[in-house]
């Protein structure tokens, strides 16, 4: 049947660009040599994985990944819900649309542009934020090179980029809450605050749980692109995460086999977390991503 023929281009791309790289992960079990190629390189068994477990630097990287991810989840996960609740209370449609346009826009900017904006505004000398601090008699802060500030900058910039956009999904969920419940609550004497608490919030609770579980499944991705652009050697101790470590080890120091081993660790643990997350979401709410 010619239906199968329509699959051919997609299948070729799938095999070459998704499955061939999966075959390529065998270099994690070899001492890969560019000249010898994948097949010609020497097998070393689990050497690279043993190195990973014993390496102090990987320990730091793993810890950073979890800490940055958890900061992002704890601080940023509730904000879109609050935004959606507040937006729901706004009845002036034009103003609401205007605000929505502004707060969702940053999602569509690249991390490069964001880096440009924040390197500019956070600059130690002449940066807008430090100028304002100075105006109030406070000392300038080197946001991007001070290990104490760096994780805060990561959390803030990802919040700046994503919270408005993430609120959309909750706004949609709120629109689906049964209107009769509000009327019933109103007749029972519930004011707007009580309605928010006892009708709106329970109405979107399953959406909240699904998104939280999925977010927890992605805990190993702490923001590779963001960090690669914003960090520098002075903040490696607090900002280096698995994704950036793979990049530096593999393509910076040409330790292809070791970096691939780190990548496999990342994919396998990440895969298990996503599967568990999806399973948990199905159990709790009956909803899942597939």
């Amino acid at each position, binding site marked *: *049947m010619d*239906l*199968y023929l*329509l*699959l051919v*281009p*997609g299948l070729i*791309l*799938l095999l*070459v*660009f*998704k*499955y*061939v*790289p*999966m*075959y*390529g992960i065998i*270099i994690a079990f070899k001492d890969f040599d560019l000249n010898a190629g994948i097949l010609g390189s020497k097998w070393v068994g689990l050497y690279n994985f043993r190195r990973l477990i014993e390496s102090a630097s990987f320990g730091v990287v793993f810890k950073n990944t979890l800490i940055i991810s958890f900061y992002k989840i704890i601080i940023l996960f509730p904000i879109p819900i609050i*935004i959606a609740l*507040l937006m729901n*209370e706004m009845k002036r449609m034009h103003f609401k649309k205007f*605000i929505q*346009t502004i*707060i*969702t*826009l940053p999602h*569509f*900017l*690249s991390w490069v*542009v964001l880096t*440009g*904006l*924040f390197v*500019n*505004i956070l600059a130690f000398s*002449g940066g*807008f934020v430090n*100028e304002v601090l100075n105006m109030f008699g406070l000392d300038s802060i080197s946001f991007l090179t001070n290990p104490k500030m760096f994780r805060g900058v990561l959390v803030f910039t990802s919040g*700046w980029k994503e919270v*408005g*956009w993430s609120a*959309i*999904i909750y706004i*949609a969920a709120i629109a689906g809450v049964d209107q009769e419940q*509000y009327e019933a609550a109103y007749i029972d004497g519930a*004011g*707007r605050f009580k309605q928010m608490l006892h009708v709106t919030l329970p109405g979107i609770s399953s959406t909240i749980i699904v998104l939280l579980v999925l977010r927890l499944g992605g805990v190993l991705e702490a923001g590779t692109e963001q960090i*690669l652009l914003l960090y520098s050697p002075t903040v490696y101790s607090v900002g280096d995460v698995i994704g950036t470590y*793979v*990049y530096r080890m*593999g*393509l910076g120091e040409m330790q*292809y086999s070791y970096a*691939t081993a780190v*990548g*496999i660790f990342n*994919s396998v643990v990440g*895969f298990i977390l996503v599967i568990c997350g999806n399973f948990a979401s199905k159990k709790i709410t009956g*909803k899942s991503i597939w």
Partner: protein
Amino acid sequence: MRYKKHAEDWIIDSIAYIGMSLFAITALIPFLNVVAKSFSSNTAIISGKVGIFPKGFNLDSMKYVIISKEFQSSFRISIFLTVVATLFSVFIVVLTAYPLSKKHIKGIKPILLIFIFTMFFGGGMIPNYLLIKNLGWMDSLLPLIVPNALNVFNIILVKSYYESIPESLEESARLDGASNLTILFRIVIPLSKPIIATILLFTAVGNWNSWFEAMLYINNSALKPLPLYLRDIIMLATSIEQPTDMDAVANFTAEGARAATIIVSTLPILLVYPFVQKYFITGIMIGSVKG
């Protein structure tokens, strides 16, 4: 429902309107500051006195960016990449999603699983890099067009949409002797315009913004797309070219030029976004209700 305004209403209204306005202002300040810098004089920039309004208004930084050869070249590369990579990807997606939407054809379920598996597991950065190297695609635009064309997430979205189209429409065409390819292009695709518009826009934004692959695979500065050029001038202070004609851009500062480059490269998104917002929002809704 109309009722008298209670004290509670005033409180909630104030929190909602003031709170959201503060959010919006926070979202705008980094932009306004960069816009202000790109129109300010060099003395105002160097003394660090530019807030959210330009000081010593002039167009020199903008002029510098627009006449810069490197900027022009990377802007052209980005336009080309965005158009070609997006059209190619959407073509592959709408084509591949069609047979996958036909649950009754033999062997389609396992094939679907082979696609879905790659959403959750991949070879990772290094094997991908070595593949591109072995293909001899370093320093070409191919790795920025071909490997990501097969977007499995989009395929699943489009496939679900196809499934919602009544089978009877296709059946009658089939009885008239139309081939599957004809049915896809004459009936199914025209009926799927909303979802195709959505993935087209998401893919286009992704391509316009993409820099990581370009950083991995492209060294030749004549092939640098805009985000990579932008990254270089932001991260490596030395890489901004001094203007050749100092008189034309008397107010040149590296900082002003950087600010202007950021603004000009974001402009396409800023201009288009308000008008196409609704497609993005439909997209996220469709993505969230399935399953």
